[in-house]
């Protein structure tokens, strides 16, 4: 076995890379949701981080208040967050489609403040621990590193969800309707498809993805009202880097930047917080539409 790689012990290097991959999984899930919502609604959902936090909190509340465990939470929390999304879209967002897209951003910014502030008021800023489910405790010794089972599960689960979403949008009939409605909603409606309902469900699906990410994150990071707001700004940068033209682009950029962040933590830890923003600036200088984006 190698003693060091570029003067870094391999344990530390792979450990940080795994951490980067985990972060990347969340970037990918969240930017995927943002891209799906943006494609259909032309709204950048600022509340995405708050709804991710809500997903984590719902699973924590299910466990502590009702004794409902992780696996049910994995199903229920996204449903609850998605339902909340339906209400938001029906009552508030749908009033803004005729206006400039920036109003959608401002509205969801206000919503993010409300959701985050309410949880903060109720539960304080300190994090709540969420236990790793029985089945996924322990870990595997891979020879070059130790892989905790739960972290492996998060990477696999997010990969499956991202690929599944991509396949559903690119290969199924429903996905074809969705893509058509993104291109030309009026024409699709003329074919007898209920576009407003599709818009609502798209928003619900996008925020449910955020809720799912929240459940996956609960056992890794502590469940805290502040967990979403800092993450969402990084995800915005991810979205700018990837460009919102393609679903796959959003996912790939998410994982890639997570890994890059992990590498930065190994070689130059001081810059790990800002590396994504620096990359964003560089990409904007070279390719303003983003790596996978099209100029519209």
């Amino acid at each position, binding site marked *: 076995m190698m003693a060091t790689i570029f003067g870094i012990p391999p344990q530390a290097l792979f450990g940080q890379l795994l951490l980067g991959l985990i972060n990347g999984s969340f970037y990918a899930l969240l930017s995927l949701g943002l891209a799906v919502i943006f494609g259909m609604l032309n709204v950048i959902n600022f509340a995405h981080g708050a709804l991710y936090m809500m997903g984590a909190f719902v699973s924590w509340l299910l466990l502590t208040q009702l004794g409902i465990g992780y696996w049910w939470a994995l199903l229920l929390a996204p449903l609850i967050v998605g339902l909340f999304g339906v209400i938001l879209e029906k009552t508030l967002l749908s009033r803004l489609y005729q206006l400039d897209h920036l*109003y959608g951003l*401002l509205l969801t910014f206000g919503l993010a*403040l409300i959701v*985050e502030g309410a949880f903060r008021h109720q539960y304080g800023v300190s994090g709540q621990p969420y236990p790793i489910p029985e089945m996924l405790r322990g870990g595997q010794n891979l020879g070059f590193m130790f892989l905790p089972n739960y972290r492996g599960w998060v990477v696999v689960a997010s990969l499956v969800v991202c690929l599944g979403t991509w396949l559903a949008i690119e290969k199924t009939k429903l996905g074809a309707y969705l893509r058509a409605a993104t291109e030309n909603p009026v024409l699709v409606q003329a074919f007898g498809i209920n576009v407003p309902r599709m818009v609502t469900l798209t928003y619900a699906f996008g925020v449910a993805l955020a809720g799912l990410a929240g459940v996956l994150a609960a056992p890794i990071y502590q469940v805290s009202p502040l967990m979403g707001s800092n993450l969402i700004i990084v995800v915005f940068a991810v979205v700018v880097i990837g460009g919102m033209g393609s679903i796959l682009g959003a996912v790939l950029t998410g994982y890639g930047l997570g890994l890059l962040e992990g590498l930065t933590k190994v070689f130059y830890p001081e810059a790990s917080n800002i590396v994504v923003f620096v990359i964003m600036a560089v990409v904007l200088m070279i390719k303003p539409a983003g790596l996978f984006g099209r100029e519209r």
Partner: protein
Amino acid sequence: MSLHSQSGAQRGTRGAPPAATGAAAGRAAGEAAGRGGATVGRLAALVALAVLLGAPFLLYPVFLMKVLCFALFACAFNLLIGFGGLLSFGHAAFFGSAAYVTAHVVKEWGLPPELGILLGTAAAAVLGLAFGAIAIRRQGIYFAMITLALSQMVFFLALQLPFTHGEDGIQAVPRGTLFGLFNLNDPLAMYYTVLAVFLIGFAIIWRTVHSPFGQVLKAIRENEPRAISLGYRTDRYKLLAFVLSATLTGLAGGTKAIVFQLATLTDVTWQMSGEVVLMTLLGGMGTLFGPVVGAGLVVALENYLAATSLPVPVVIGVIFVVCVLLFRRGIAGEVLARMGQQKAK
């Protein structure tokens, strides 16, 4: 497509009398009110000035100085969104870094306050040039996300750089003596200094908006491709507007550091960027006095809420939602539109 032209269209369809045609009606009515009411406006400005001069004898000066600093901040922000159609979600970066630079040079280098504010403003201008050059490559929503991300970078730098003292911030900044003449530890001297800074900043904004440059900026806001086809290099105009807005934001931030003798992480957070958006939205985007009104209301509201157990972010969030859904013109915009309607009748 800009935020403002949309709200203009909205205004036209909702508020204009039937005789008026199209989207321009509401806007034209507003501008007619502005022109017809020039004398009224001048009178109102004089009254406002008198109120500002006499205010410290009636109200708590620290509160007034806070309002003035944030009013200048909001006016500078409004220059970009209201007249240039560019929504920056990262103006806290300029406000906060100017505050840090001013606090640092005054406290550690022992510079007088006027030089401190000047250096803070210059730092914000340089930062504005760098951020502006990157951000104007995209428009609309992307512009907002890019400015937000860049300002978050400034936040992390402020957290990590040694001279900002991390979570503690730079505390106990001496107010010093202005031009070696006025001791700023005297609340009244400090107040009139802040008032002077505000009036200078406001005059620059007023002049900019009413200059040929301001007209071109408005043209870009309304229809950028057309402005390009008329031969304007719109990127340069947008960049200049961005730098000017950042600079004046820095002026507000540096002054704030002297008034409160403090520069902290709060000044560079995204919440601060959001707050100035709210002040401008509430007061009225694209109006000259709106952001001043909005800043006064938000600062007063926060002062009031601090004494209650209500969670501030929730209240701020609710105001945001209400403004976006029901009240897009803001207070000053609403008043101008009403005046315009009366003129039309």
